[in-house]
C-alpha cells in the first residue's frame, strides 16, 4: 500500500523549519511590536481628531495595526528569496529531481511556515494590543474567526504566489534582488500596511483593487473587523489566488523548459 500524499508532511516540515529558530521568531516579534506601537500612536492621533476616520474608530485602528503587524510575518510580505537563491546556486536541480509538484511542495512548506507565524508572530501582538489598548473584537466571533482563517489562508496563497513569481525571475535575470526590493518597497503601502486602504481616495482605491495587493493584508484585517462587502473581498482574494497560482505554474513550466533546453 502506498502512503498518502506527501504534502501534509511538507506542511509540517515548513512549520518545523521555523520552530527551530525560536530566538529569531522572538526577535521578529519584538521588532513587530515596537513598530506596532509607533504606528498605533500615529493612527490613534489621526482618529482622535474626529473620533472616527473612514469608518475606523480608536478600537478599529488599533485592531488594524496589531493584526497588520502580525500578518506581515504570517503572509511573509517581504520574501526571503530562498527559491531565488536556489535557482542562482543551481540547487534548484535537486528540487526539480524530486517526484513532487514543485509549486505545490513549496506552497505546502509556506503554509506550514505561516502556521508557525500565526502562533508566534500574530497571536502575541494581537494579545498585546487587545490587552493594553482599545481593541475592536468581532461582534460575531465564531463566524468571523472562521472567515478570518479562510481569508488568512488565501492571503498566504496570494503572497506566496507573488513571491514565487518574483523568485522565478532569477531564471532569466540571474539575480532577482532588484525586482524583489521594488516589490518589498511598494508592497507595504499597496497591501494596506502603512495606513488602511480605506484612507485612500476612492479612485486610487479602485485601482488598487484591480491588483492582488489588498488581498495580502487589508482583506483579512477587514474580515476580522467585520467591514462591509466581505463577500466581494473574499471573492477578490480567491480570484487572485487561483490566477496567480496558475500563472506561477505557467512560468515554472517555462523556466524549467529553459533550464532543461538551454542548460545552466
Amino acid at each position, binding site marked *: 500500500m502506498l502512503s498518502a500524499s506527501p504534502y501534509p508532511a*511538507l506542511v509540517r*516540515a515548513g512549520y518545523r523549519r521555523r520552530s527551530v529558530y525560536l530566538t529569531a521568531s522572538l526577535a521578529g516579534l519584538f521588532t513587530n511590536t515596537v513598530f506596532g506601537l509607533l504606528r498605533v500612536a500615529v493612527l490613534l492621533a489621526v482618529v482622535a481628531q474626529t473620533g472616527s476616520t473612514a469608518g475606523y474608530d480608536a478600537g478599529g485602528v488599533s485592531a488594524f495595526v496589531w493584526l497588520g503587524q502580525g500578518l506581515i510575518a504570517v503572509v511573509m510580505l517581504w520574501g526571503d528569496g530562498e527559491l531565488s537563491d536556489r535557482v542562482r546556486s543551481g540547487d534548484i*536541480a535537486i528540487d526539480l529531481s524530486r*517526484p513532487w509538484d514543485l509549486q505545490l511542495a513549496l506552497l505546502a512548506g509556506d503554509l506550514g511556515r505561516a502556521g508557525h507565524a500565526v502562533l508566534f508572530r500574530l497571536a502575541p501582538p494581537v494579545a498585546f494590543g487587545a490587552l493594553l489598548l482599545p481593541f475592536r473584537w468581532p461582534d460575531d466571533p465564531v463566524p468571523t474567526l472562521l472567515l478570518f482563517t479562510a481569508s488568512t489562508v488565501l492571503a498566504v496563497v496570494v503572497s506566496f504566489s507573488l513571491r514565487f513569481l518574483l523568485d522565478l525571475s532569477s531564471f532569466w535575470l540571474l539575480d532577482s534582488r532588484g525586482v524583489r526590493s521594488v516589490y518589498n518597497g511598494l508592497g507595504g503601502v499597496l497591501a494596506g500596511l502603512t495606513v488602511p486602504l480605506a484612507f485612500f481616495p476612492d479612485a486610487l482605491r479602485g485601482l488598487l483593487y484591480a491588483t492582488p495587493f489588498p488581498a495580502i493584508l487589508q482583506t483579512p484585517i477587514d474580515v476580522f473587523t467585520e467591514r462591509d462587502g466581505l463577500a466581494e473581498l473574499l471573492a477578490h482574494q480567491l480570484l487572485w489566488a487561483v490566477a496567480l497560482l496558475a500563472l506561477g505554474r505557467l512560468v515554472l513550466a517555462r523556466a524549467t523548459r529553459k533550464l532543461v533546453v538551454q*542548460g545552466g
Partner: protein
Amino acid sequence: MIVETRGLRREFRVGRIGRRRTVVAVDGIDLNIAPGEAVGFLGPNGAGKSTTIKMLTGILVPTAGELRVCDLDPVRSRRELARRLGVVFGQRSQLWWDLPLRESFTLLRAIHRVEPGAHRERLDRCIDVLGLAEFLDVPVRQLSLGQRMRGEVTAALLHAPDLLVLDEPTVGLDLVSKERLRVFLQEVNAAGEVTVLLTTHDLADVERLCRRLVVIDHGTVVADDSLTALRSTFGGARELVVELVAPAGPLDGLPGVRSVCVEADGLRQRLAFSPADTTAAALIAAVAARVDLRDVTVVEPSIEDVIRTLYATRAPS
C-alpha cells in the same frame, strides 16, 4: 539496460549576444550500463561528466542522440524517473538544512511514498552500517561534512532506487570517512540491489568500487573497460625496486627492462619493465646474478598513471 545512450550529444551556446559560439560539451557518447554494474565515470574537469549526468537525470535535454534511463525518457518522465533514481551530489545537499537529519528521512519517505515498514527496514540498516545513530537528531547544518555525506547517501537509497548516481561523493572527506562510505557502497552494490554510476576525481574510489571504468575527455568516451584491462593496456610499466647491499652503477642491459632510475647513490634502483617482455621472477634472478640484493618490491602501475596516460594520449593536438 539501466542506462542506454547512443550518440548522446549536448551543445551549449555561450558568449555574448552577437559573438555567440557553440561549445560541444558531450560529443556522441555511447554508454550501456546493465543492472547491478558499478561503473566509474571519469574525466578531467570540463570533460562533460556533469553534463552527461544532468541529461541522465532529466534536468537537461540532449541536443541529439538517444537516451533511456530505467527504460524511461528522462526529460519527459522526470518525475517518474525520480522515483527510480537516487542521486548524491558531493557539492549539493538534498537534506533539509534546518531540521534534524531524522526529519529529512521522514520527509523523503512521504515524498517518495514509501511504505512505512520498508522505509523503517532500509533506514535501520543505513543507521547501523553508516553509524548515523549518534547524529540523527542533530540539525543538518551542524553536521560535519563526513556525517552529512553519510546522510546524503542514506537519503538517496531510502526509496530503493534502481540506479544510484554519485557525483563526487567523497570530495572533501577525510580518509576514514571516505573508506567508510566506500565500504558501504560496495556492500550495497554487491548485494545486487542497486546499479552504481560514480564520478570522482579520487581514483581510490574507483579502485574500490568499480569493476568497470568509462573515461571521457572532450565529450567523448576514450576508454570503456575493466580496470584490469585498462591497466595492462595503458598502465605501461610495472616497476621492480631493488635495494642493494652496496652501491652499484646503473643496472643497465638487463633483458626486458625499459628504463633504470638510480636513487640513494646507487643503493636503490627502479627498473621499469613490461609484463609482456619478462616476469618479475626472471628479472629478480637476473639482478641477483649481478649484485647482492637486500630487498625487492614490485610496484604495480597506479590507477593515476593509467588515467594520466589516457588523458595525455587523447589530448588535443
